[in-house]
Structures are given as C-alpha cells and as structure tokens.
C-alpha cells in the first residue's frame, strides 16, 4: 500500500462525515515528519537565531575588511560599509610581506600533523578494536586522561624539553606536540568506528588465507574510510586552532610563524590595520575550507550496507 493510500484511509476513518482531504498536500513525508505552518515557522526562527549567534562575528569581520580604516573609528558606528572596497585584500600583501609565508606555514604545519596522526591512528585504532592484549583498557583510559590536559597546561615543561633538545624555532617544535595531543582522541574516535565493522569480515578474510595486514588494507581501510576522513578533518582543524599557542611559545622566527601568530604583524607601532587583518584572516582560512570540501566527498554514509544481515 502506498503512503498516500494509507493516509486517505486514515482520514476516512477519522472523519465520519466524509470530508474530502482536498487541503492535504500530497507529500512523500511520513506522518511523524509533518508539521503545522506555525511549527515550521518556529523551527526556522530557532535556526535563524542560532545561526546569527554563530555567524555574526564572521559577518562583522567581513564587513570590517571592506571598510577603509578611518571609518572603523567613526561615531556613530555604522555596520554597513559606506564606500566599501576590496582594497585591504590587495594592500595586506605589501604591508605584511611575509603573509603568504605565514599562510603556507599554517597549512603546512596542519597538513603534516594530520598526516602523522592518520598514519599512527589507523593501525592503533585497528589494534584496539580487534586485538585483546594486556593493558588495552588501561591504555585507552590513559589516552582519555591525557585528553583532559590542555596543551597549555604542559606548555612550560614542553618548552624546557624543547630547549634542552635544541628544537626551539623549528617546524618540529610546532608539529610534534600538536600531533601528540591530537592522537589520543582520534584513536578513541576511530576505534569506535571500527568496532562497528562486523568482526565476521575479519574472520572471513582470515579463513580465506588473508593476513592481518592484508585484511586491514583490503577490507578494513576501505570500510573505515568515512571514519578516517572524520579523524583527518578534526585533526586538521584541531591542528590549525592549537598551532597558535605552540608557535607563540616555541618559535620566534618570522619565517616559521603560522598565520595566527603572523597576524600580529598588522599591529603597528601607531595603529592596528584592522581591515587588512580581517582580510588576512579570511584568506587564511581558505585553505582549510578547500581541504574540508575535498575530504568530505569521502564521507559516504552507509558504506557497510549489505555486509552482514543486521
């Protein structure tokens, strides 16, 4: 029986005096997903309020980047730029000549962190998902505990460590601590994902003569791809966000500075080039957007459909 037929039947039962359901729109929606117009309005209003809170800083930031500097300090303040232009997007490259390098550094540091994390996390998560070894539970608990420290708490010990090893002012100092702090949560995330892949697939491959590594490569990796992509995206964003604090502490060389630290160059002795700073921020997050758009194609849901009868 089709949905429509079922609906009419119910309507017929509900209304003894036969009312034609003429006002009822023919939608493919299930009954549980149907709303009155005021409910729909309320839902969208809620979404709008929420989105406004999230997006307002971005909107204001973008508007600031369009305004000439003088207009930023006018009273009364006007949110809409009067004679807005994209000049800041061109001038910023000359007022901070290293800007391109900073953007590259940010991208480079995050990419290497992501690469390290994925390479380490995939086999680790597989091991935690499939093997029973002594101390597995304790190790996982320890990972969770490590996650409770923010990197900032350990900054001073890390600094002393880096200094003792002579690693200050290198990419290494900004990459390795970043990766280390992101690995534990990623192992948890990917392990949970891999636990959802039926164990029978491993067993079937084992019965057919495949080694553990072959099974990992041919069976588990393709099926865990959406989980791996989530880990990659989260790591990339996490590395992008946390590099500020590591770069600020472990690095004083301009050519190694990532964007968040590099933006300080817009703080002049007399004034701050707010419009160019905003413009640089927006250009700076562009690589992140591109990476995420590229990766999310692999976020295919329901890839395990048909593996086993659930």
């Amino acid at each position, binding site marked *: 029986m089709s949905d429509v037929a079922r609906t009419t039947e119910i309507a017929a039962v509900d209304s003894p005096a036969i009312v034609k359901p003429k006002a009822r729109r023919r939608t493919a929606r299930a009954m549980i997903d149907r709303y009155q117009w005021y409910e729909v309005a309320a839902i969208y209003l809620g979404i709008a309020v929420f989105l406004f809170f999230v997006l307002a800083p971005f909107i204001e930031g973008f508007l600031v980047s369009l305004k000439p500097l003088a207009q930023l300090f006018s009273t009364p303040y006007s949110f809409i730029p009067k004679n807005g232009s994209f000049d800041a997007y061109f001038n910023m490259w000359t007022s901070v000549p290293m800007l391109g390098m900073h953007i590259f550094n940010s991208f480079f540091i995050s990419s290497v962190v992501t690469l390290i994390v994925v390479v380490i996390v995939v086999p680790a998560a597989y091991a935690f998902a499939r093997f029973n070894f002594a101390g597995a539970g304790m190790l996982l608990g320890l990972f969770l505990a490590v996650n409770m420290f923010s990197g900032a708490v350990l900054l001073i010990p890390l600094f002393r460590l880096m200094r003792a090893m002579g690693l200050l002012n290198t990419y290494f100092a900004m990459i390795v601590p970043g990766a280390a702090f992101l690995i534990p949560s990623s192992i948890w995330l990917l392990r949970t994902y891999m636990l959802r892949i039926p164990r*029978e697939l491993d067993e079937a491959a084992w*019965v057919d003569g495949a080694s553990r590594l072959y099974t990992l490569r*041919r069976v588990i990796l393709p099926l865990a791809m959406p989980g791996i992509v989530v880990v990659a995206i989260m790591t990339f964003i996490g590395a992008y966000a946390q590099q500020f604090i590591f770069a600020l502490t472990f690095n004083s060389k301009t050519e190694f500075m990532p964007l968040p630290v590099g933006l300080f160059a817009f703080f002049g002795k007399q004034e701050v080039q707010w419009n160019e700073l905003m413009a640089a921020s927006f250009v700076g997050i562009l690589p992140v957007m591109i990476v995420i758009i590229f990766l999310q194609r692999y976020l295919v849901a329901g*890839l*395990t*459909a048909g593996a086993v*009868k659930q």
Partner: protein
Amino acid sequence: MSQLSLKRLEKSFNDSRIIKGIDLEVAEGEFVVFVGPSGCGKSTLLRMIAGLEDVTEGQIEISGKVVNDLPPVQRGIAMVFQSYALYPHMTVYENIAFPLRVEKLPQDEVDRRVSAAAKVLQLEPRLKHRPGQLSGGQRQRVAIGRAIVRQPKIFLFDEPLSNLDAALRSEMRIELMELHKRLGSTMIYVTHDQIEAMTMADKIVVLNAGEISQVGSPLDLYHKPDNLFVAGFIGSPKMNFINGKVRSADGSTVTVDLGKLGVLSLPRTSTAVAGQDVTVGIRPEHMQLGSGEFTISTTPNIVEHLGIHTISYSTLPGGENFIGLFEGNPTIEDGKALDMSFAIADAHLFDSRGLAVY
C-alpha cells in the same frame, strides 16, 4: 579412511566447559549436520574445525593430518558465515575472487574460477553489483561462491539459512543439496532447525550441552532415538511423554503402569527397568482417532485445523501435555471428549536416566 576426525575434542572458555569431549568421524563426501538447541556448542565446534577457535584438549584431524595449530587456509576448509560476511565495498566478482587474490593467482585463472562459480550459483548477471544491491538469497549465494572458488576439501556452513525468510529458505535448501551432489565435497552444516537437519543430512549429529547425544541418519534418529533429548528434539510437533512406573519386566514384556491412563505392555527384553520410574514416548503423528491397541480418552483444550492436518492439544490426568496429529480434517472440537489410540509398535520407552529401553 575418514576425512575429518575429532578425537576427545574439548573447549573451555575460562572455567566453563563448552565442548565436553567429542569423538566424531566424517567420511569423504558426507553431508553432516550439527543440530541442537542454542547454546549447545554446535557453532563453537564448527569454528574449532574451521580454525577460528583454539582447541583446549583433544585433536582435529583432516585427511589424516593433525591440524590443531594450522590456520584455516592450510586446513583445506572454506566457511560460509551465518551473516554472509560479504565485503560491501567490493563487487560480487571481487567478493568471490577474494581468496584467489589472497593466493595471488594470475588474472585469467581468477576469471576462469569466478565465472565457473558464478555459473553454478546463477550469479552471472550480478557479478558487477555490490552486495548491498542483492537480495538475501543472492548474498548467500555470493558467500557460497567465495567458498567454492578455493576448491576446499571440506565446506563449513554456520546456520547459513537462518537469516532468510521461510520460502527462500526451502529454496536455498534444495540448491545446497544440489550443490552437494554436483561438487561431491564433504559438507558440515550447523543449524538449530531440525527440518533442515532431517532433509539435508546424510548424518545428523545431535548436540546437547557440549556433548553428542546421538549420531545417525535422519530416519534412525526419528525411529530409534537413543534418549529423551533426541526423542524430544527430532520431530515436530514434539513427541509426547507420559510418566509411568514399571510393574514387571520379565525379559520379553515390560508392563508399565500409567496411572489413570491404564496399563501398557511393551515388547522389551530388558529386565533392568523393573520397578523404575520410566517415560513412555509416542509421536503425535502416530495417534489415531478412535480406539485401538492402546486408547487414551481425553478432552482437547485447543484444536488447530491446518487443512492437511488437524492438531489437538490436551492435558492428561497426570498433568502432561498431549498432542495428537491427525490426517485431513476430522470432526473434532475443543471441549469435546474423544478417544485416540496408538499402536504398541510405535511407542518408545525410556528408563529413569532418560535412555531408550529395547
């Protein structure tokens, strides 16, 4: 020489013994079914033969070689899982070819074997699809295809049909039997469904709580169950059991006092049962309406009319439930007293330990 032999095989998880010493011989080309209620250890036993579970004690021999510590692929077995265990990201072709890819066979050999398997299983038009696009029966066939291409000595099936609906199940049952005929390989098949066991097996192994209750051909088990467990497990509806006490056993006849039902004399040579509490078993389908060699008068609580059969459920004076299954559509009703009877030759007798008395 038997192809597979299990010798005093045992399996324990921590302290609990799951498999308690199993001896079994399987000849080449036999279709053996392990059957038993859930939790009896039949799947564990199969997984031990497959090499997916360790052996705690005892030996598994395949073609005369002890394989206890060999990985599955070196045992010459192939296994079909209950859940199919297909690789959802691969096409049907690649799923079937998987074991051959592991072996790194050349592409033309892979092609040849996969297409041969696909032909046998009628999967040729489906080779380019993914498992997600297939029906349950087709998925099951892909799983079987993956087992066939390796040309194993022994096929292991772990409840392969339990995920299919009733109609498809009987269809696949026939297909599997045809496959067995065509390939002639040894097959070991685990199921909890006694109909599958009865219809497919050359030899049924009834397992109960980690032990073999009885091994035999389907009709052996049906006509000559060794004990109460097998008697109750094989046959549907279940065999009726009536409690009684032996009055006399003179070496040719055992006379059993069935309380209010009367006294039943059975031709048995055993004298050991004299004075024991015993159980008389009679299958529902061996009951006839009207009086006969031994007549039971009872009032059915419920009567089911199935067209081909009519089944009556009643309670005996001793409190036992009693089922009668009659051909066709006789005029019986619930709440109305009736007489039914059975032939003495159809009755089974079990002693106080639950073992059959002959």
